[in-house]
């Protein structure tokens, strides 16, 4: 992967496949680290699946519950001296609190760290592909936070308008672009 946002997209697609209705993506830049937390309320994974989820040779492609996304994310994270952790609660055992949390910590001052890439485009792609899934996104650098909350958008737009409508996606893209411009102009060193 050449951009970190492609990893985010991939993990988020896993969440959508797991039937998540709410996806939380949190980015936090702290000194020389980027913390990325992606949490969903999808069906979760069993202990056995979880143990093998970053092993690319676990099983064949057709029976594999997730793609190569997590092994590749682990590589991206570990090649910067960072860490990846995955927790999951399967629906069968946790009927009310099921879901998966992927947490990545990257060292952004490492030469092998890839750029964050186009986060607004990634979020728009997600929204377009899964308009019914709610997304809560925050990207925090110092005191500044870029935010997208589709639950608030739904409240304003009402239930009849799909968040996958071109007008909605265009608005999301320009709103995020504007927020990122403010973040870039905040005088802090923003890793993008």
């Amino acid at each position, binding site marked *: 992967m*050449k951009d970190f946002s492609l990893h985010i997209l991939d993990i988020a697609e896993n969440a959508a496949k797991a039937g998540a209705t709410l996806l939380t993506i949190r980015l936090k830049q702290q000194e020389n680290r980027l913390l990325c937390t992606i949490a969903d309320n999808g069906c979760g994974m069993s202990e056995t699946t979880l143990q093998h989820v970053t092993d690319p040779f676990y099983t064949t492609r057709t029976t594999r519950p997730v793609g190569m996304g997590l092994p590749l994310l682990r590589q991206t994270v570990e*090649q910067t001296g960072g860490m990846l952790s995955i927790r999951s609660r399967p629906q069968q055992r946790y009927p009310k609190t099921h879901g998966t949390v992927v947490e990545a910590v990257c060292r952004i001052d*490492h*030469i*092998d*760290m*890839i*750029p964050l890439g186009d986060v607004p485009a990634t979020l728009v792609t997600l929204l377009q592909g899964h308009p019914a899934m709610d997304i809560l996104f925050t990207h925090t650098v110092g005191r500044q936070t870029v935010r997208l909350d589709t639950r608030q958008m739904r409240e304003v737009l009402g239930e009849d308008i799909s968040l996958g409508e071109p007008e909605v996606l265009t608005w999301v893209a320009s709103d995020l672009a504007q927020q990122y411009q403010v973040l870039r102009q905040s005088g802090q060193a923003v890793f993008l």
Partner: protein
Amino acid sequence: MTVEELAQTFSLECLVSGEITRQVQSCYIGDLLSRVMGQAPAGCVWITIMTNSNVCAVATLADVACIVLAEGEQPDAALLDAAMAHGVGLYRSDRSAYMLAAAFAAGGI
């Protein structure tokens, strides 16, 4: 062979010309930048598919003759800016790293 001759002979698209009269002494292929930093010999043509601005930093540190982006890759805006600012030769080609290196070897590098 100089950087300029390399670009002409192998139809490389020039993004930043860099030190065009510099001799290209060898060739190195690599995408893991920390590895390239330690292993790429000075004066080589470095073939990579990585396109972020760290590529320019590594090229400077390793003192390569020029960079060639393979497989049709386009540089990030930050890489293009950095290469221009530091006068690092940046070229691109649609060919694979293997095809490029094989052609360079056949051409005497």
